[in-house]
């Protein structure tokens, strides 16, 4: 199972995502923003960071990278021959997915106007996506969150549509860290192949390097994020 991780200039968590894929048992493959080729990978992770500095809007410039044209093409609506390339966008990757219109809505400046880094509790609400099928419905997990522009925003109709179709993948619990509408931390496309998530599951895949154990109440050792990556292995196999 080969999972590609795109490096844009300014990507930061690309190496962490590659490591998470490896820990999950997959084969990590580095992809380069300037290539149109995705090396035949089975799924793609768009990692966190500040692609192209994010000076214009987060993800706005990365969306036009050559590799994104290919990813947008392959991840588009399912056809008879293909269910659509699974893509997980984490943080900046989520922003890129929204700018690419693979996911609805947008991510705006945190309500409190500051970058925030914290161990964040989430509820996993959709478990039939490629990226969350190893979680139980309504599992509560703790993974790091770190963003300056992480507030999920969309108009009422879009929000109602996402809720109605059960496309809210994860919701913030206890604290809404950035002013996201309806506490939304992550959403998916209709078929559950494309998922965008503001918090960072790749930073919670190795005991001792993730959230403090006592805060991580699902696995108890700070590895609550690993199931995103093991899910993909499972999900891609069964797809």
């Amino acid at each position, binding site marked *: 199972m080969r999972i590609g991780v795109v490096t844009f*200039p*300014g990507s*930061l*968590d690309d*190496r*962490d995502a590659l*490591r998470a894929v490896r820990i999950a048992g997959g084969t990590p493959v580095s992809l380069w923003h300037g290539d149109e080729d995705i090396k035949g990978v089975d799924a793609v992770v768009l990692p*966190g*960071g*500040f692609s*192209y*500095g*994010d*000076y214009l809007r987060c993800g706005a410039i990365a969306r036009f990278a050559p590799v994104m044209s290919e990813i947008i093409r392959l991840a588009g609506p399912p056809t008879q021959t293909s269910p659509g390339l699974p893509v997980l966008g984490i943080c900046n990757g989520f922003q890129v997915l929204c700018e690419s219109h693979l996911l609805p809505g947008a991510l705006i400046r945190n309500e409190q106007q*500051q*970058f*925030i*880094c*914290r161990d964040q509790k989430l509820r996993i609400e959709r478990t039939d996506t490629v990226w969350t099928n190893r979680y139980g419905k309504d599992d509560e997990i703790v993974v*790091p969150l*770190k963003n*300056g522009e992480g507030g999920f925003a969309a108009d009422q109709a879009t929000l109602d549509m996402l809720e109605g179709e059960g496309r809210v993948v994860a919701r913030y619990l206890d604290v809404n860290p950035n002013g996201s509408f309806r506490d939304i931390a992550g959403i998916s496309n209709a078929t559950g192949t494309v998922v965008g998530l503001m918090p*960072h599951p*790749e*930073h919670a895949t*190795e005991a*001792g*390097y*993730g959230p403090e154990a*006592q805060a991580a109440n699902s696995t108890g050792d700070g590895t609550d994020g690993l199931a995103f990556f093991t899910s993909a292995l499972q999900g891609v196999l069964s797809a």
Partner: protein
Amino acid sequence: MTSDSMNLTPEQRAALDTVEKAATTPDVEQPWAALGMKADEYEAVRKILERRPTGSELAMYSVMWSEHCSYKSSKVHLRQFGEKTTEAMKEHLLVGIGENAGVVDIGQGWAVTFKVESHNHPSYVEPYQGAATGVGGIVRDIISMGARPVAVMDPLRFGALDHPDTHRVLPGIVAGVGGYGNCLGLPNIGGEVSFDPCYQGNPLVNALAVGTLRHEDIHLANARGNGNLVVLFGARTGGDGIGGASILASDTFTEGGPTKRPAVQVGDPFAEKVLIECCLDLFKADVVQGIQDLGAAGLSCAFSELASNGDGGMLVHLDRAPLRDSTLAPEEILMSESQERMMAVVTPEDLPGFLEITNRWDVEATVMGEVTDTGRLVVLWHGETIVDVPPRSVAHDGPVYERPYSRPEWLDARQADTPDRLPKPQTDDELKSLVVTMAGTPNLASRAWITNQYDKYVQGNTAQAMPDDAGVLRVDEESGLGVAIATDCNQRFAALDPYTGAQLALAEAYRNVGVAGGKPLAVTDCLNFGSPEDPAVMWQFAEAVRGLADGCQTLGIPVTGGNVSLYNQTGSTAIHPTPVVGVLGVLDDVARRTPSGWKSAGAQLFLLGT
């Protein structure tokens, strides 16, 4: 490499201050005083050159001989760090004081480089950009050693928390440290936040960066090998931070006079992130002979230091420097502090490979000139020679001062003023309320409101960060080999007794590394003091250095590098002496680190020591 003097208009050529012209016009008045030089320093330059300096030479000498670049007041004291370092203490030292940063062997073929530096004054003027470019600058020091930067720390000091100006300064500085570090993908693994009215008009922004490398990857700042090329790469040169140089430019450019030159530098962390990755690829491809980052004193520093550390001379065509502002005069280009630039020495054979990598990262690279065997640093401007100097005289043989110092008389009164005059809590309730009050004071309360703005997770190797006593990082993912780093200083102790205060700072950082499970190996320091022209301050400085050097000798770990920041004062009132000390230790396996805090009910408590 043809020179193109035709690009200058006849007026520009006539206005240009060349070496030739300097030799025939000895009596031209030069603005050395306005550039911060003393009369005898200017005379010394004339003696070295056996003529008056050109405007460009004056620019170079004035900035390289400034306190900031030449350490002219502190040098005589700092020597102790070397002199008191025994052979045994050097056991783990791969590169010592003098290079961009020290390099320490941590075993298994791995090395670590780390250094702390100040960006105090710029952060007061423009808090966000000042702090941001402070982080950017220290990170470039780490890259230039051949290392991958892996973490930052930020010892910060502010005036009173409730002072209105603190509300201007603090949020900007914290956002700047965070904004730049977060965007570079460097976890922030610790630091300090301390409030004291002495910093009201002079906050301290110290930034520490750590990098890791394999032993064989060490790179040094020298220009060797006749015919090797000198390549400037990274951001374009603009008019950043050259307030003083405009004085010179106004000599040169008659029409219109000097344009407005910003005294502040604006950082572009994205450009630096790309520069990091680009440099690492260059090192991997083994196409770099010598490398130097551009910081304070910009090209003046890079040219003269590379040449001075090398074995010959250097010839550069300054007009080749890519500019952001085409109106810059050569003196200004030499002095510009534009951020996110590096300079490398590359063999002609390696140049194509070098350029292929810079192109891949969209980093602009320009061959500025070459290493020569003349022993001179020669700078051309459209074919005209505007600098011709012995590089060592600029970079290393600057003035050295033995400034007078004496123990201030008021120290006795200060030392006599002990806590004994404070009321002691008499009852349980008083004790309880005192503890609660103390816990609520800004200097003891949680710093989470600040540290929550820093990414501590990026790179996935942070084993310990805020609120632990020391930051702990994994260096080798297979073996778990890692490092622990802590920075400390209690300026109030140092104000009472700078000798002991510096040792207490060292001891605290040493203990913090020790309790985390690290074996302390090396020290870096950032010495923040007032004006060296005040004998009382100079005494504090001398005592602090002596204390730190003695302390290091007692503990058996060497100082590998650091930074001195003087003139931290408001009017004639200096800040408390603030010798910030960083200690680095090694852990064979970070899995065995010890975090602070009580983790389980029923654990037993022991008090160790006296």
